[in-house]
C-alpha cells in the first residue's frame, strides 16, 4: 500500500533511514572531494549535521512540529558548507509546512520547493552545479506532475530520478568537477538521504547504527572534573544516555511495553526521552539514582552503548563560565586555528578565544554560537581562517540572540589572512571602528600557498598528483608537484602572480617538518627572493607541511 500522508513519526523514521543510507556512503562522498587531501569532508559534514539534528529532536506525531524542531537542531549542528546548505533546505521545509500535522502530496511538493528557495536565499553566493542546482531541478521538473492522488512514493521516486539526472550534469556546470572527473559530492549526499527515505517506504530498512557516529563528536571532554570535589553539593544528578538491546533469551522479561517502561522510568528521573526502534530502545534520562534505572532496564535486555555524566560537573562548569565573563567586554576576538603553535600565536595576538578546528569535522555553528555567548562583548570579531568555516560562523551570527552584541565575521579564508589581520590590530586603540579598519587592511592583498604531502591520487587542471608526492596548492588548486617539500614549495611560490610585488612572508611550519627542512627552505628563499622579509613561525599544523602567507 502506498503512503498518502506522512506523519511526524514516519518522517523521523524515513530520515533516520536516510541518515543510515548517507552513512553507508560517507567514505565515498569524502573521496569525491576535489582535492588531494581530505579537506571538505562533505560526507562527514552532512552526516554530522543531519545525525546530530535528529538526535536532538524529540519525536512528534505532528509532522510540522517535528520539522520545525529538526531544522532548529540542524542549524546548530551544521558543519561545513554542505551542512549549512542542508540545514537551510530543512529550514525551508519547516517554514512551508511548520503548521501541518500531516504531509499530503501538495504539502510535500510545496515543502520541497520552499526548501531549495530558502537555501538559495540564504546562500551568499549560490553556486550552480552543486546541491542547490540538484534540489531545485529535482522538484521544478516534476512539480506539475504531482496531483492530489500522488503518493509519497511516487513523488519521491520522481524527485530522486530528476535529481540523479541533474547530478550527471553537475560536471558540465562546474569546471572544477569536470577536471577531477567527479560529480558534486554535496548533491550526491543529498540524494542519498532521499534515497534512504524512499527505501524506508519500500520497507528497505538499513541498520540503524548512526548513534555510533554521533558518540564520537560529542565528547564530554570539555568538562573540568576538578570542579567537582569533596565539598561540592550534589543536586543535579546524572545524565544517562543509553541504547538498550531487547533480548530474546528467556532470562529476560519478554513483555516489554514501552509505555509501561516510560512510566517506571518517570519514578526515577526526569528529562526523559525514550525512543523505541525495533528491538532497540534509546533512553535519555536525568536521575539521582542511576542504579535503579540500570536494574529496571536490564530486566529487558542489555546495553549497547552507555553514557553516564555527572551533571553537577557540567553545571559547575557553566556557572564558572558565567562568572568568568561577568565583565562585559567592548571587543572580543575569536580565531580558529589548527595547530598548537598557531593557537599560542593567535592568543598572543589578542584572541580572547581560539577554537582548534579538528581536522575532519571543522567547527559547527553551534560551537561558534557557544563562543559568541562566552565572549559577552559588544563587538565580537570572528576569524574563521578557513573557507569552509565561514558559512558556519555566519550562520551562528544570524542565530545569536543578543541584541546588544554585534558579531562581525571577518571572511578570512586562510590562517595567513587571519594572521595578518590580527597582527595589524591595535589593541590599545579605543576607537573600535579604527581597529576593525586596520584588521581589514591586514587581511587584504594576502596570497596563501600551501605545501602538502598528498594522501591520495588526484588529477587536476595543472598537475596529476599521486599519493605520497609533494604538491603546492594555490587557491585550492595544486599547481606543481615534486619529491621534496622545499623545492616543491619554491616551485609553487614562483607561480604566485606578481610574486616579486610581495614584501613579507610569514611561514607556518607544520608538525611534520624538521628543522633541517626549515633551514633548507630559509636559504632557498633568501637566495631566490632576497628582498622578501620572510619569518618562520612554529605553527604545528597537522595537514600542511608549510603554510606561506605573502603580503
Amino acid at each position, binding site marked *: 500500500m502506498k503512503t498518502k500522508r506522512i506523519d511526524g513519526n514516519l518522517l523521523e523514521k524515513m530520515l533516520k533511514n536516510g541518515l543510515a543510507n548517507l552513512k553507508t556512503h560517507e567514505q565515498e562522498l569524502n573521496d569525491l572531494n576535489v582535492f588531494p587531501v581530505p579537506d571538505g569532508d562533505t560526507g562527514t559534514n552532512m552526516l554530522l549535521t543531519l545525525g546530530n539534528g535528529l538526535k536532538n529532536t524529540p519525536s512528534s506525531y505532528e509532522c510540522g512540529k517535528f520539522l520545525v524542531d529538526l531544522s532548529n537542531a540542524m542549524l546548530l549542528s551544521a558543519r561545513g558548507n554542505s551542512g549549512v546548505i542542508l540545514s537551510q533546505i530543512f529550514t525551508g521545509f519547516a517554514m512551508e509546512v511548520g503548521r501541518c500535522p500531516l504531509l499530503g502530496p501538495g504539502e510535500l511538493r510545496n515543502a520541497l520547493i520552499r526548501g531549495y528557495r530558502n537555501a538559495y536565499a540564504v546562500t551568499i553566493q549560490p553556486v550552480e552545479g552543486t546541491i542547490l542546482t540538484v534540489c531545485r531541478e529535482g522538484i521544478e521538473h516534476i512539480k506539475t506532475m504531482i496531483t492530489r492522488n500522488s503518493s509519497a512514493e511516487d513523488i519521491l521516486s520522481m524527485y530522486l530520478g530528476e535529481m540523479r539526472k541533474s547530478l550527471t550534469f553537475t560536471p558540465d556546470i562546474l569546471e572544477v568537477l569536470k577536471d577531477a572527473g567527479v560529480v558534486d559530492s554535496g548533491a550526491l549526499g543529498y540524494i542519498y538521504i532521499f534515497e534512504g527515505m524512499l527505501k524506508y517506504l519500500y520497507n528497505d530498512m538499513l541498520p540503524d547504527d548512526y548513534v555510533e557516529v554521533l558518540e564520537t563528536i560529542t565528547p564530554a571532554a570539555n568538562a573540568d572534573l576538578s570542579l567537582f570535589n569533596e565539598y561540592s553539593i550534589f543536586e543535579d544528578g546524572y545524565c544517562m544516555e543509553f541504547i538498550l538491546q531487547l533480548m530474546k533469551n528467556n532470562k529476560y522479561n519478554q513483555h516489554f511495553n514501552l509505555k509501561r517502561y516510560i512510566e517506571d522510568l518517570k519514578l526515577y528521573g526526569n528529562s526523559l526521552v525514550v525512543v523505541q526502534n525495533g528491538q532497540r530502545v534509546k533512553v535519555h534520562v536525568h536521575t539521582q539514582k542511576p542504579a535503579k534505572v540500570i536494574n529496571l532496564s536490564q530486566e529487558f535486555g542489555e546495553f549497547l552503548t552507555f553514557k553516564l555524566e555527572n551533571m553537577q560537573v557540567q553545571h559547575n562548569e557553566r556557572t564558572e563560565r558565567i562568572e568568568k565573563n561577568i565583565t562585559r567586554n567592548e571587543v572580543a576576538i575569536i580565531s580558529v586555528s589548527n595547530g598548537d603553535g598557531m593557537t599560542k*600565536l593567535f592568543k*598572543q*595576538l*589578542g584572541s580572547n578565544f581560539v577554537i582548534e578546528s579538528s581536522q575532519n569535522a571543522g567547527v559547527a555553528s553551534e560551537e561558534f554560537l557557544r563562543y559568541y555567548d562566552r565572549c559577552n562583548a559588544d563587538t565580537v570579531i570572528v576569524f574563521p581562517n578557513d573557507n569552509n568555516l565561514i558559512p558556519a560562523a555566519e550562520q551562528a551570527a544570524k542565530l545569536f540572540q543578543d541584541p546588544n552584541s554585534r558579531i562581525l565575521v571577518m571572511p578570512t579564508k586562510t590562517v595567513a589572512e587571519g*594572521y*595578518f589581520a*590580527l*597582527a*595589524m*590590530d*591595535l*589593541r*590599545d*586603540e579605543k576607537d573600535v571602528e*579604527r581597529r576593525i579598519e*586596520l584588521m581589514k*587592511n*591586514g587581511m587584504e592583498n594576502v596570497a596563501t600557498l600551501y605545501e602538502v604531502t598528498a594522501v591520495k591520487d588526484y588529477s587536476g587542471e595543472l598537475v596529476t598528483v599521486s599519493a605520497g608526492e609533494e604538491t603546492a596548492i594555490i587557491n585550492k588548486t595544486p599547481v606543481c608537484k615534486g619529491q621534496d617539500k622545499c623545492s616543491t614549495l619554491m616551485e609553487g611560490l614562483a607561480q604566485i602572480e606578481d610574486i616579486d610585488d610581495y*614584501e*613579507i*612572508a*610569514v611561514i607556518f611550519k607544520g608538525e611534520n617538518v624538521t628543522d633541517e627542512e626549515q633551514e633548507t627552505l630559509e636559504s632557498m628563499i633568501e637566495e631566490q627572493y632576497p628582498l622578501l*622579509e620572510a*619569518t618562520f*613561525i612554529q605553527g604545528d599544523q597537522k595537514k600542511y607541511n608549510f603554510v606561506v602567507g605573502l*603580503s
Partner: protein
Amino acid sequence: MKKFVIIADSNCDLEEELQKQYDIEVIPGHAVLPDNTEVLTYPKWDVFTQEDFYAALKKNPDGFKTAPSNVAEFLEAFEKAAKEGCDVLCITISTALSGTCNFARQAATQAEKNYPGTVVKVVDSSRFGPGFGLMVVHASLQRESGKSLEETVEWLEDNKNRFHQGGWLDDLSFVAKKGRMTNAKAFFGTLVGIKPIGEFDKNGMTTVIGKIKGAKKGYSVVLSYIKETIDNPEEQTIFIAQSNRMAQAEKFKELIEAEIHPKEVIIKDVHMSCGINVGPGLMAAYYMGKPISDDLETERALIEKFDAETK
C-alpha cells in the same frame, strides 16, 4: 657666570666622538651577561660586536640584564666636577624606563652637601637611547649659546616634549616582555613585516600610534609624519637609531636627506645598555619638532591619514 658640565648616563648612546664634540661626560651603566659576568656598559662596542651582541640577545633574551649606574658612581662624577669648580647638569634616561634618575638625584643631594656652593641639577629626559642623546646634544648647544645652568634646565623642561621619535621597532617582544612600553601586553606575538610606529608619550615611554604593513609603505608614512611634525629641519641634526638594522637605516637616511633636507643625519647604534631592553629591530629617527600632544591623538590621526593616503 659659573661653568657647568653636562653628564649623562650611558643610555644616551653618544659615542666618544660626539661626547668630545659636544663636551659631554658619560657615566657607564652595568650589565649582567648570560654567563653571569658583570660588565660596565659604555656607548661603544667593547665587549661584543654589534652583530654578535644582537645575535646572542635574540637567542637568549632573558640571559642579559641591565642595572643603572649607582649613587656612588654619580657622586664620584659630580664631586670631580665640583672640585674643578663647576656646577653640574645631569640628564638621565626616562624614569619610566629605569631607576637611574633617582640614583642621580640622591647623588646630587649628597654632592651639594659635600661641596657647598656647587649646584647639581638632574633632569629626567623622558627619552631613551639616541632620543635621549639628542636632548643631551641640544643641552650642550644651549650652553654654547651662553645659557646658564638654570636657563638650560628651564629650556629642557619646556622643550622636552618636542623631541620626537619617528620609526618602528620590528620586534616588540623585548620591550613588551620587559614592560618598557605603554600597554606592553597589547604587543605580544611575532609581527612579520608589520611595522609598529612608535612615538614618545608624556609618561616617558613609547606608545605605538599605528601599524603599517610592509617596510616600503612604512618608510613613506614615517617620512610624511616627520615632515609634518619637524621644525626647521635645515638647522637640525637628526639621529637615526638602529639596532642591527644598518641597511634599513642607511636607506632611511637617504630618504630623509632627499625629502627633508636636514643639516645633518647621523646613524647611531643602540648599544648594550639600551639594546638589552629594546632588542634588535629598532629603526627610528629622532628630531625636534612640534610639541607632542598629551594623549597622542594628533599624532595617531596623522599616521592614520598618511596610511590611508599612501598606496
